[in-house]
């Protein structure tokens, strides 16, 4: 494993990006005994505004806790795509939602545009859970943790009564991730 892998979830406040980051860090740190640090950055507003949640995973101790050379970025709004893409490595991968991000003039790295909102609407019946679908895509594409680890971390962190809904959401993410991997 590469010594330091940087993940960034970006979008707007309220989309659940911080939770997605926590679940990823939990899966890596607790269920796979790697080193992981999760940080976040958001504005003073409770909803809206640009927000990001970052996870660093490494086999060595992690000193600087924020991402500066991003290996994997998820963008769930146009504003966050534009604002946070500059730190993505040349070899990095950017996962954007097809409906929420439409202008790719600032794109860097390898771009995967995926129908996550559409899949949520069609398969879950609502867009709630978009963060978990994106997490599933990210895990599938990066292979950073196993399906089992991420599912264990997911179940621990979501509200009781919503376990099945979220399990379904992460499976959708795995499937979308696999499709895009096979097509590239």
């Amino acid at each position, binding site marked *: 494993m590469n010594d330091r892998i940087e993940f960034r979830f970006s979008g707007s406040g309220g989309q659940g990006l911080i939770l997605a980051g*926590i679940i990823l*860090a*939990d899966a890596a*740190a*607790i269920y796979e005994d790697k*080193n*992981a*640090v*999760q*940080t*976040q*950055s*958001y*504005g*003073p507003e409770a909803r809206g505004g640009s927000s990001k949640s970052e996870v660093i995973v490494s086999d060595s101790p*992690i*000193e*600087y*806790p*924020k991402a*500066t050379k991003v290996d994997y970025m998820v963008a769930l709004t146009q504003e966050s795509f534009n604002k946070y893409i500059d730190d993505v490595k040349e070899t990095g991968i950017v996962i954007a939602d097809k409906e929420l991000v439409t202008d790719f003039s600032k794109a860097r790295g390898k771009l995967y545009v995926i129908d996550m909102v559409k899949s949520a609407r069609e398969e879950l019946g609502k867009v709630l859970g978009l963060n978990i679908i994106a997490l599933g895509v990210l895990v599938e594409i990066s292979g950073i943790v196993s399906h089992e680890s991420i599912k264990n971390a997911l179940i621990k962190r979501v509200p009781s009564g919503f376990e099945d809904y979220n399990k379904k959401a992460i499976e959708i993410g795995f499937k979308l991730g696999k499709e895009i991997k096979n097509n590239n």
Partner: protein
Amino acid sequence: MAKNIKLMQGNEAIAEGAIIAGCNFFAGYPITPSSEIAELLSSKLPKTGGVFLQMEDEISALGAVLGAALGGAKAITASSGPGISLKQEHIGYASMSEIPCVIVNVMRGGPSTGLPTLPAQSDIMQAKWGTHGDHAIIAIVPSSVNESLYETIRAFNLSIKYRTPVLILTDEIIGHMREKVVVPDKSDVDIIDVKLPDVPPEEYNPYNYTSGAVTPLAPMGEGYRYHVTGLIHGETGFPSQKTETIKNAQNWLIDKIYKNIEDIEKFDEFQTEDADILVVAYGSTSRSTRQAVMMARTAGIKAGMFRPITIWPFPEKQISNLSKRIKKILVPEMNMGQIILEIQRNACESQVYGLNVVTGEPITPDQIYAKIKEIAES
């Protein structure tokens, strides 16, 4: 026994550490980026027989904490810059009347309401000088989530041992970041408990300025009757304006901390043995510094780091000794230059450089490395 390892936030680690230390009272008023400490203690304390109080403001919150501590509680409050400004009045009262308490400041950008969600290290001097009058204070700056937990336990211990307010200074980065923590069992850590005086009530004086030993604070309700005031007082606790008493009381407040500095101080050194450039960094900035020092070493520059964990009282002797052999010292801080003043004062034989970043963003390893390189080439 299997280790209890959890992924948790810095603020959560402080709440966890407080409970392990035996904290049974919190009063506060929520403020970003410290609110999770209040939130978590509001659910933890009632389950362990403790009390959680949300007060009408920050001043009353520390007032309630001091009242609880006088009643024998291990008490804590948490806030951020704007709230800590309000608490200054009672920090002075706690110093003067020697009431143990722990005060957490999860630093954010200031002055005033400043930057609620963004980090800074700009309350370092406020921690020492925020309240008026001569007094000494203990302040601790953890640099990780794990350290936040253990240093909170140490903060409670020091507050009781020296009957003093102890400040824990973290920042938005440490407070909100999540990483692995080894949660200890209560039996695995040293905990200093509130003790009854070893004399009967009729022989008890709540203060002693000359023996050199700290008198235990008798919890109210145990039969020990004494006076508590913010006025200069004699050893019985009653106000006094006798010159001898004033002198003894004022000296005591400083001496009880500074004469025990070796017990209170705590620091960490990284590759300082053969260093040509010393970087003095604390809190979240020390994480970037450690990485920058490794980058410098890879590039053949002999850099090292000194990291105060107890920042007040300041480790003057260590800096002075290091300055005898390391002639270039860099002090990166997320403020306009605060601890650098202490370095300049103590490292008289070295050239001291600052790196001050006040953008609401943490200082990166690249920024520190660039400065180390610049200094090395100068």
